[in-house]
């Protein structure tokens, strides 16, 4: 199996505060991995380190065999490491369609065409139509994103990520803030992601995790606590202690 994402000994400290220490994990093509952990476990920091939002203090990250530890966030995106945001982060006044057009044009480095018409770029309309259809967004293609329902914004986030033809896709709580009645559609969308994609999902909702993930990685206090299949994780007493224990505190 192809190793798409290899993280080795990844650490980050802000001054004396160690927020991530010595995290090692691998994602293969086709993996569906869930990253879980109690609040403050360092999940978001880990995602920010992997995607290049903040530089690591130590460790290496390789994407498809290539060392990307020192690359900028945008460079990592161009190599196929794509994330969706926890809170839908979209261009409010642009239409759904324009989002996807922009993502596809950006991926193909065709955004510096000053005198071409977006409507006439070869192949663009078909590809965008396919993406819209794939997420059931065709009926709202011409709607400004600011006036979309939240669930649809989340679907657009996923469509946007797919438009960039990712190798590794990081979904940061894809169903957060979406009413339960609507989260089903997001799950369906995740189920239908291309099979050769490596997907890492950060999620709190354990139903979602068990349904989606073939493997689970547990973070606690910035460290990798354990990893394994869903069954192994449920049976692991350390997970119960750290994860369920802290959840009990929260209530």
């Amino acid at each position, binding site marked *: 199996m192809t190793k798409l994402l290899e993280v080795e000994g990844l650490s980050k400290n802000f001054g004396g505060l160690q927020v991530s220490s010595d995290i090692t994990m691998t994602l293969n093509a086709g993996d569906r991995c869930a990253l879980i952990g109690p609040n403050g476990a360092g999940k978001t920091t880990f995602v920010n380190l992997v995607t290049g939002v903040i530089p690591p203090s130590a460790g290496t990250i390789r994407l498809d065999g290539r060392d990307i530890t020192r690359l900028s966030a945008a460079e990592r995106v161009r190599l196929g490491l794509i994330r969706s945001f926890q809170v839908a982060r979209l261009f409010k006044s642009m239409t759904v369609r324009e989002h996807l057009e922009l993502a596809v044009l950006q991926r193909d480095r065709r955004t510096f065409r000053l005198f071409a018409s977006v409507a006439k770029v070869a192949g663009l309309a078909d590809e965008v139509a396919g993406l819209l259809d794939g997420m059931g967004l065709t009926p709202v293609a011409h709607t400004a994103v600011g*006036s979309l329902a939240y669930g649809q914004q989340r679907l657009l986030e996923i469509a946007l990520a797919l438009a960039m033809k990712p190798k590794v896709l990081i979904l940061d709580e894809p169903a957060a803030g979406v009413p339960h009645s609507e989260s089903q559609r997001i799950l369906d969308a995740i189920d239908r992601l291309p099979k050769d994609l490596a997907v890492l999902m950060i999620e709190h909702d354990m139903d979602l995790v068990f349904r989606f993930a073939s493997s689970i990685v547990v973070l606690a206090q910035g460290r990798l606590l354990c990893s394994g299949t869903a069954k192994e994780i449920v049976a692991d007493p350390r997970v119960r202690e750290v994860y369920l224990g802290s959840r009990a505190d929260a209530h």
Partner: protein
Amino acid sequence: MTSVAARDGKAGQMTRPAPLGRRRDLGWIGIPLVAVAGLAAYWLLPDDLALLTRIAASALFVLSLDLVLGYGGIATLGQAAMFGTGAYAAGIVAVNWNSDPFVMLAAGGLAGGLIALVTGALILHARGLTLLMLTIAVGQIVQEVANKARDWTGGSDGLSGIDPAPVLGLFRFDMFGRTSYLFALAVLVVGLVVARRIVRSPFGLACRGVKEDPLRISAIGGSPKSYLVALYGVAGVFAGVAGALTAVTSGIVGLDSAGFPWSAEALVMLVLGGTGRLYGAVIGTAAFMGIHHVLAASDPFHWMGFIGLFLIGIVLFLPGGIASGLERLGGLFRGKEDRA
């Protein structure tokens, strides 16, 4: 691939009725309308051709500001740096080498674009107030360079003796200003066509994205700064051509063409007309300079006060500028069109 909507048949649940999208331009109508209105003014106001010519050239300048501000979100009070550079470049070329009006426009556009690219690359990492200060500083530097380079620019006396050759070798710049006006109007209309093409291009789409959320642009693999610098350069070409057009039609270039008041006035005209629409720049310029002209003749001491009141009224009651008011009016007559 089956669409989710088709599969679970619950599309309606997530679909809120979409409000009418905010219209960004009047489609293809805006530009012919400018041309027709411009020609109508030529017949109706034959005694005011000098004013109309200034309006046309200034509108092109304000259009360049709309490109950076309305489509890139770059806050600037130094757009006149590019205008002044273009005007001086055109004037210097005309006085020393070649006074063909198209050569002058080309020289102005080139100079304006170059200065915008160079200064843009230096200052566009900044945003907001810092950027505003830096753009003002660039304008001051350009003005001071023009002031010191007396041998080329005439310094504070201005650069005079610009005598443009007939357009295409056929149409002389007559003393009544007919050629000047029609030439300026034609350049403005071409400028609008080109600008419209650019804002609807992939590049224009990316710039709108940068305006809304630069970090999200990085997250899809783009570099916000390179878009902004390119846009600043493109707008610099427009401003430079506008400056050159002023040199062609007025025959003189002064230090005030690169000055801070001219940058600020352009901003007022753009806000008055409406940003992010292109033709809002034309409307704002015509309104501002037209009102100025009428009021300054009838009440030379208080005209600025009236302009101020007018601006306050617009900002309070039509925050999108005069153009947004026209769009609302237009929206009453049609309502089902998809998008421009």
